[in-house]
């Protein structure tokens, strides 16, 4: 079961990174989060999460 869950998380992150941007065009919203453009905040957050997922998956 934990194996299935971690695989699910992986697929979810993949989905977010590759497809959310094209579908919802959030990268063109020109929104700033605390003065930083949203796409940068979004991408680096997903990126960091990916590392966490990989770290936990490798345990």
């Amino acid at each position: 079961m934990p194996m299935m869950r971690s695989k699910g998380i992986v697929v979810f992150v993949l989905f977010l990174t590759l497809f959310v941007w094209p579908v919802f065009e959030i990268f063109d919203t020109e929104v700033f989060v605390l003065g930083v453009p949203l796409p940068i905040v979004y991408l680096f957050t997903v990126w960091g999460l990916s590392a966490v997922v990989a770290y936990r998956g490798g345990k």
Partner: protein
Amino acid sequence: MTDYPFILLAVLLVYLGILFLIAYWGERHVEWLNRNRWQLLYILSAQVYCTSWTFYGSIGFASHYGIEYLAVYTGPVLILLLTEVLLMPILRHVKREGVTTVSDFLSSRYGGSRSIAVVTSMVLFMSIIPYIGLQVQALSNSFSTLASGGGRAYIEATLIVLIFLAVVAILYGGRYIDFTRPQYGLMSTVAFQSLDKLVFFLIASVFIVFVISGGPLNIFHLSVANPDLKPLMFTGFADHPYLMWASINISSAIAYILLPRQFHTIFVQNRDEKDLKTLAWFSPLYLLMINLFVIPIALSGNLFGLPVAKADDFILTIPLKTGYNIIALVVFLGGFSAAASMILVESIAVSKMLVTDIGVPGLMSIFRRREKQVDLYKLVLYSTRIAIPLIILLGFFYSYFMLVEIGLTSFVGVAQLAPSFLIGLFYKDGNKKGALAGTVTGTVVWLYTMIIPALSKAEILPAGIAARGPFGIRLLSPLDMFGVFNSDPITNALFWSLFLNVMAYLLVSAFTRRAGSESHAAARFFNISGEPEEPLAAELVKIQSELGRLLTPSVGPATAKSIVAEAFTLDSSKLSRMLEEFGAALEKEKRLASIGELSASIAHDLRSPIGAIRLSMGTLEELAKDNPEGMTTINNAKAAMTRIEKLVNDILWYSKADVLNKVRICAKDAIDDTIELLRKEIEIKRISVHVYCEDSVVFWADATRIGEVLTNLISNAIEAVEEKVGSISVSATTDDQNLTFEIADNGKGINPQALGKVFTPFYTTKSSGTGLGLPIVKRLVNAHGGDVRIESDEGAGTRVILVFPRTDFFRQTVEPISGGLED
């Protein structure tokens, strides 16, 4: 800054010296690289993905396409998330088959196919040479920018650097023909470069962003107000940002595992599956760190009014323009490091591929036609050593005559191997013909959609051909095939090349049959049973495949297959005889093993009664102390008992030789301790013993068993020499590959007939010997991965030489011992 070149050259030479020392140190101190340290080297070395294109090119890319440049790095992050389901099966196949390159992998997947190996090598060669050229150009440009030179100045300096890199690559990458061996020197220096390029990039970035530009928020704030810069914080100036984002992600994800340098560092040099799992989270963090400040620097360069056409150099020109020359120097070293590590690993990996897939088979067929004997080992070794500088030289020439801007073009080229590689991992019916059809089709489309437009842009081909298409047929325009991806050349090239590649692979595989050898390879690859065969034929295939697997790390699967096929005839009578001999040998070995186990068990059981007899003899000795005749009988019985005890102990030593408890040993201490143990015998015979060994010679071994080996050999030497004139020398020396002990005496020597039998158990020429001394020595030395040989001249003396491979002495702490050819 007219005086800059001298300082720059001096700094560069010092830095090159440090790189060389690290490589030298890594190769000489393998024992220092325990499990954790090796893991650190491994995960850092895989960051060779970040080249000068990351260091300089990312900023230029971001200056045109905003955050879309990040797809070059999110692609690898995506594929690393698939470590368990994708990378791990690749790693297991690499380790199981002993493959060392991408072409080896594909060739072994499709039955040791030579044509697959050649096509793969050619595709990678076409993609990688321009990529190496890009690194050379970055080196040359950064040098000339920093030293205020112009154009293609400083070619000499670049050449000096390249010669140095070629020497390091040959010394530490072309050292052995078996690339599955750990390349300690190379990995140490590449890991160091990965570390310093990140540190240098962060130092320079933090300085530019926080000190020079007032912080990232200030940069973003100023850029929002500028309509020319605002898009860079979002999707840049691309017409089809989403398609481009997906295309770059896909091509960089594929490149991350299929670029020769990546395949070499991630799979070939891997020693433990756990290290790959560590890489899966370490790499995303590393890539994130090195990209944190790219967008702010790209914006900052624009805010400073620097020319966008030279945006690649922003990280160098911003500190130079603001008078921070030291920061510029730090950038220069980081960029140099990024380019140098790529050139090192890529030239080694590509040269190995070209040599085993194209060079050696070609040369072998020439030698065969001329009926000349060829030393395959030397042929592969020296061909690789020649190919490495040639690859670097080609990169240099390419950079000098740079015709085509490369980068993503290279990635799309490498992606043509993905269908046969990645689909082939899971699609059991994928076959050689399908793989060939797919790869060739995809490569042709790649050349058409990316190289023709580039040549057209460079005015080598007619300028309009890319836009209008051949013969004015717009639907065939290389930049926009069938009018689907207007103005997005990357997606146009990637989609059509991969689409047609996959279609050709699947369709041809579906409508063609596999050859026999391919079926066996596929069965082994997918761990399924092949078609049922005659037992004899099945045994033949098994033996052939095992032999092929042993040769693969050195010559690649295709050449290994042809060598084995040539050596083997399908003569069934010959094969039957061979199998009978093999079976008989196996039976004999089993019988001997049973006898050995029985002897060991009896010997073990005899120890208690022997102890009881010894005690009883002590009592008898007390009782008979006044009876000289009785004492003589008891002493005779004691002497006989001592011989029985020695025999029992020898049998136990012999039977348990493989059980090792390895610790770190100083060779000199081991020799001195043994001599101390035998001091009494030495003094009785009044002979001289000389020891030649430095304190620094250390190794990993079972201390008790090495002590037994030395005691056996030095006792033999003491027995062999004459009183007073006898002389024994014991030495231990070490070089890059081996640790060698030598025990020499000027005694009576061994006659040639006896010399051939000294390692046979129970063979002895001594009246009181058990005949197990030298067999024990041989078993103990073999158990440590070493070998023993004896040279003797009757009447002149004997030399016993024990050779232990250094790597095996180290490897027992990190991995199981595996064989391989050495220089």
